[in-house]
């Protein structure tokens, strides 16, 4: 890592933002379809575990990421069964799903993985570009999943605003009855949104593993899924804004690691710096207060009932 303290700050910020961004991209698809997935933390954690297991056992990062995506899809189906098919309360089910994921991955990691880690690290300098001052280090000297996240932003943006899928998802998230009477299978489409969204969320978990030597530890995600929920609100369900909001949190979290070199922060107690991302989230949510959840978000839908 070369360059000044701000280069370091932003390079770290981007790295810390990537998992948040993946999760936020996934969540915004899900929320736009009318499902509030508070189980996001659990999905990330399961994705991280799946990735670590496959990565460590096979030595292949690609296998790790693919496994995480599979885990994400499976989580999406299970959650769809609960939220969409059975109409279980989404807030409470989501929190409990996260509780189960935390306990379950802890037990499984203990039994299946121990503390093994993969052989290599993920960083991949992009030839040429990584030499550019500041931006080279900040953007082009990162993990593959950081680059992929940057690519995913316009793709998700296109998915949501340039495709029939996106149009339908937005419609059923605002007025599911309107979608249903127009012939859209609301529950099927929400299931798809959950599966796609959870795959992205799980990649967010995988990115934590890929960035940190491929090992797993209990509670590896450390609440990042919950922060991603706030990122989505702050971003007003827009992928580009999600990138900006995730970066804001990443940089806020990175601040503590360069505080010594930033004269004005050197004497702020480290606990206060640790609180910063959370307080920032609260402030952000207050300022994003005008941002409304999609009208039907969180409301279980029963076909044919008023």
């Amino acid at each position: 890592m070369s360059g000044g303290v701000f280069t370091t700050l932003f390079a770290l910020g981007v790295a810390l933002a990537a998992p948040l961004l993946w999760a936020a991209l996934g969540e915004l698809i899900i929320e736009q379809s009318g499902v509030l997935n508070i189980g996001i933390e659990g999905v990330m954690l399961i994705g991280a575990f799946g990735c670590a297991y496959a990565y460590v056992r096979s030595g292949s990062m690609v296998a790790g990421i693919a496994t995480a995506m599979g885990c994400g899809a499976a989580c999406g189906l299970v959650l769809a069964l609960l939220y969409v098919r059975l109409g279980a309360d989404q807030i409470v089910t989501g929190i409990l799903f996260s509780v189960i994921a935390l306990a379950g991955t802890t037990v499984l990691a203990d039994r299946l993985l121990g503390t093994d880690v993969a052989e290599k690290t993920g960083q991949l300098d992009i030839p040429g570009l990584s030499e550019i001052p500041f931006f080279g280090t900040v953007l082009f000297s990162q993990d593959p999943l950081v680059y992929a996240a940057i690519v995913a932003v316009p793709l998700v943006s296109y998915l949501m605003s340039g495709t029939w899928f996106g149009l339908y998802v937005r419609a059923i998230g605002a007025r599911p009855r309107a979608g249903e009477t127009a012939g859209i299978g609301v529950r099927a489409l929400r299931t798809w949104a959950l599966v796609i969204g959870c795959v992205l969320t799980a990649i967010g978990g995988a990115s934590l593993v890929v960035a940190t030597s491929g090992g797993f530890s209990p509670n590896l995600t450390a609440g990042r899924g919950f922060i991603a929920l706030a990122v989505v609100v702050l971003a007003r369900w827009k992928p580009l804004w999600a990138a900006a909001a995730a970066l804001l949190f990443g940089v806020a979290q990175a601040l503590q690691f360069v505080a010594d070199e930033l004269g004005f922060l050197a004497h702020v107690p480290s606990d206060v710096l640790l609180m910063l991302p959370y307080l920032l989230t609260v402030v952000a949510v207050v300022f994003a207060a005008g941002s409304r959840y999609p009208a039907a978000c969180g409301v279980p839908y029963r076909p044919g009932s008023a």
Partner: protein
Amino acid sequence: GDDNKDSSGDAASTDDTSTAAADETPKKIGLLTTGTQNDKNWGEAFTIGAKAAADASGAKLTVVDNLNEPPQYAQQGASLGQEGYDMVLMALGTIQEVQLKLAKQFPDTLWCGYGIAPDNAPENTCFVDALQEQAAFLGGVAAGLATKTNVIGAVNGFEFPQLTRQPEAYALGARCVNPDVTFVQKYINSWTDAALGKAAAKGLISQKADVLLAPLTTATNGLIAAARESDGVWVMPEYFDSNDTAKEVILTSVLFDLQTLAEDVYTKGLNGDLKPGEMLPYTLAELPDGGVAPFYEDEAVLGADGVAKVDEIKQKIIDGDIKVPSTDEIGTVGTGSKIDPASIGC
């Protein structure tokens, strides 16, 4: 847990039946620990020691791992106390209240904990402490000899004296052999958050640190990743010889020989060799594998002279020629960079 049979005593009738248990039945010992039995870290070290003691004495051992919070120790401890265990060692530094409470509730069990004995400790307690500052000091010696930038660092979990003494002693150890060394560090308020560990490490690396102490558990993975992505940066894990995990970036590991410590305290406890409420501070002299792990393929980094220097200083600590300051003196942030090395015998 390995053993899952034997529920001889009906748990519902707890009271005084346990006195009837005579010498014929094998003794039951328990280990409650943070981390896991196979974590190549704290938990595994204690488990190995406990198993050795159990094998030698024929006692039945139950290990319950992954206990991180005091209430878990309280509940799990009570569960063992209720089953009439003879001795339980609780391997976490932050649960003395729980230990004392259990000792009161289950007077027939010997409750040992990792920590400093309080005043008026109950009779059925014992306290063990590895003087971790000594081994960390030795890690610092190796770091001071290995560093090319003359900056060394540490990424720490939580800030409290029993932890803080380690990076501070590490800094002092480095200054003992290399007066030009400066020390940088970060606390990340987690033992396990690898992503934060990595970011912290990268922050230190950007300040030119090239040997990083890791008084952490799984967050160490983040340091390893950061080192792999930077040239010439070494990581120094703690508690267990972790070289195999990532040979190319692990210089050595700081070891407290908790295996020997655990085996010793169980053996003494089972043999009745402990005084009521005894405090057992283990120094490098009593822990043969304490200090730093072998350097393996990385000996060249220090050179033969350097390796010899590390051994020499270890001997000096054992002999008392170098007096590594105790927790009281070195348990607050910044002390390791202030104390004059000459004043302790360097």
